[in-house]
């Protein structure tokens, strides 16, 4: 199946900036005095997607679905268990630390919590300039000028370069984080819930800034969030994760207007909409997200799915293209046997 995903996406677009194939990250669960491995947390269990230049892929799912692990694994901040992560065509997983360096420049990250992701003892200007220093770019003066320019670009005053992180508000700190991510002129920025900790009025400022920067620099974003309205706003395409797997991946409009996986449908129906006159039929999912240590057999979602059949309990549905550029992993949506080879051939 991953082959099919790749051939279709490769055919339509320029070479992807990020190309992830069958990515897995299993964390061992250890117990007892001998720290014997008694099981695994299947945090990410076979995830495939790609991001084109200038594109935003939104990655949504509930806590524990593995979306943050995906963010860290594609940058090798945690070492993936298996799979391929290609940045600008090169698989970075077998690379040594020094071989990784040029690729690290191309892929940066913005974290959720603007309070804990900045060194409290380092002036803001140094925080933003640190990637330049580490990668040995420019002289001291040159770096200072670049940092001042970055400050202005993200809406901070260069006169604030000497201030410490605690002297900034939450929104401003997130701007510092964005400036730091931009310092090396990367092609890809991974945003791990970059606006989730911000107040509504500040969130809009940061989302606008990220979208402006994307237009300006043709950046690619892997944008991770649990707020579906935010993801709908910023993304071109959206992937929905459930217990370590992508269950649906489609163009933003198709996914939100016409969800094909029962989980996506339930997720969309659960989002409270700020319109009191809109009386919707809500489909409230029962039960909790199961533990990723012993995920349910077959389709992980079958324990909460209103349409679950016997087959769902035993057989894992593959992620297949059910309409053009619309992928879903559900037995109900599988095309007839005759049409399956067609999508592979495309």
């Amino acid at each position, binding site marked *: 199946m991953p082959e099919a995903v790749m051939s279709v996406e490769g055919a339509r677009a320029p070479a992807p900036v990020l190309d992830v194939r069958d990515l897995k990250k299993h964390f061992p669960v250890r117990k007892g005095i001998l720290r014997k491995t008694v099981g695994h947390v299947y945090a990410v269990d076979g995830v495939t997607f790609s991001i084109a230049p200038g594109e*935003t892929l939104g990655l949504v799912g509930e806590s524990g679905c593995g979306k943050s692990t995906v963010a860290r694994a594609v940058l090798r901040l945690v070492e993936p268990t298996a799979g391929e992560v290609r940045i600008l065509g090169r698989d970075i997983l077998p690379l040594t630390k020094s071989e990784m360096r040029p690729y690290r420049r191309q892929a940066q990250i913005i974290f959720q919590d603007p309070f804990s992701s900045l060194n409290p003892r380092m002036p803001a200007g140094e925080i933003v300039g640190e990637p330049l220093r580490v990668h040995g770019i420019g002289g001291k003066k040159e770096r200072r000028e670049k940092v001042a320019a970055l400050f202005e670009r993200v809406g901070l005053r260069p006169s604030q370069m000497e201030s410490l992180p605690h002297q900034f508000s939450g929104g401003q700190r997130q701007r510092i984080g964005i400036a730091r991510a931009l310092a090396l002129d990367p092609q890809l920025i991974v945003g791990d819930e970059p606006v989730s900790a911000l107040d509504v009025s500040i969130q809009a400022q940061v989302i606008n800034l990220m979208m402006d920067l994307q237009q300006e620099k043709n950046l690619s974003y892997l944008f991770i969030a649990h707020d579906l309205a935010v993801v709908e706003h910023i993304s071109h395409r959206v992937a929905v994760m459930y217990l370590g797997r992508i269950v649906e991946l489609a163009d933003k409009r198709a996914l939100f207007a016409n969800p094909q996986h029962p989980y996506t449908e339930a997720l969309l129906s659960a989002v409270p909409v700020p319109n009191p006159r809109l009386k919707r039929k809500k489909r409230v999912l029962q039960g909790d997200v199961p533990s990723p240590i012993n995920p349910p057999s077959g389709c992980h979602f079958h324990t909460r799915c209103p349409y679950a059949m016997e087959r769902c309990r035993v057989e894992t549905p593959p992620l297949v293209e059910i309409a053009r550029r619309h992928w879903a992993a559900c037995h109900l949506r599988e095309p007839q046997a005759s049409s399956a080879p067609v999508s592979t051939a495309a």
Partner: protein
Amino acid sequence: MNTVVSERETISKPNALQRTAAPSVLEVEGLKTYFFVRQGIVKAVDDVSFSLKAGEKLAIVGESGCGKSMTALSILRLVPDPPGRIVAGSVRLDGKDLLKLPESEMRKVRGNQISMIFQEPMTSLNPVLSIGNQIGEALMLHQHLSRGDAFDKAVELLKLVKIPEPARRAREYPHQLSGGMRQRAMTAMALACNPKVLLADEPTTALDVTIQAQILDLILELQERLGTAVVLITHDLGVVAETAQRVIVMYGGKKVEEALVDDLFEQPRHPYTQGLLAAIPRLDALSGEQQAGRLKEIPGMVPALVNLPKGCTFAPRCPFATEICRSEFPPYEAKAPGHLAACWHSEKVEGAAHA
């Protein structure tokens, strides 16, 4: 009680009806909670007044630091003192001013007549007491049940909040429950003594959307069944729209707008409310574009509440602000029947909404 319930079903009835319906169970008037810190005085709650009718669902909405949680804590007299103190105002429950009660009397109110659900169930439940014993505690204290009876009632309550296998769960500890289940247990605890008022402070903020939907459904269902009045404190305008009948918007420690939920969303009369509604990306207005346009921003940032200048707290960020806004806080005026706002320029705000 039944009148209120039926009013919710026909939610877009004229305002006057609800204004006169049930008697007020809780009346907060001129409440001021200040924190005395080294840098000066933090006016966390500054002259907040509202009333809550029996069985009503009122939402208090605002961003972090706007004073919404502190309003709830002030009602229960749980403000950390020092440095905080309630310096003025009254909180009347069925006409009795809670701020004048001796502490021993106040204890009979907390968890009995007014109870509270907190945002983080893991930190607000006692980790070393079983769920059943924690729920039973309030019943033993307020309803003088024996330990055994209290435990049995706790099991019943867990069943009420739809926890599967309530008898087994009652013997378990908070860490053995999932986040959603803990919030259900806390709801059971809050409703144990059948309170008149339930203060829910961001009850679903820490939860995933599918679990949030379950918990909101549960709170609303129990609220209607038991006739409890609910004050829902939240920052999520979506949650407000789907659960509340009436809404108070707070900014910088002050109430800036109050209206029935339909009126507020249809015709916000305060520029802050208007700005908030425009700043959220929304799923109900699918753009149809490949990528949506820019969101409306509210420029600047939420003010620090230390030594606020005179005048309207929102003036530095407000597109309509003039000289008078910077010198004097606007009065609360009924801009429409049942629709209060504190703004000198609400006609302009109204005009902008239609532009």
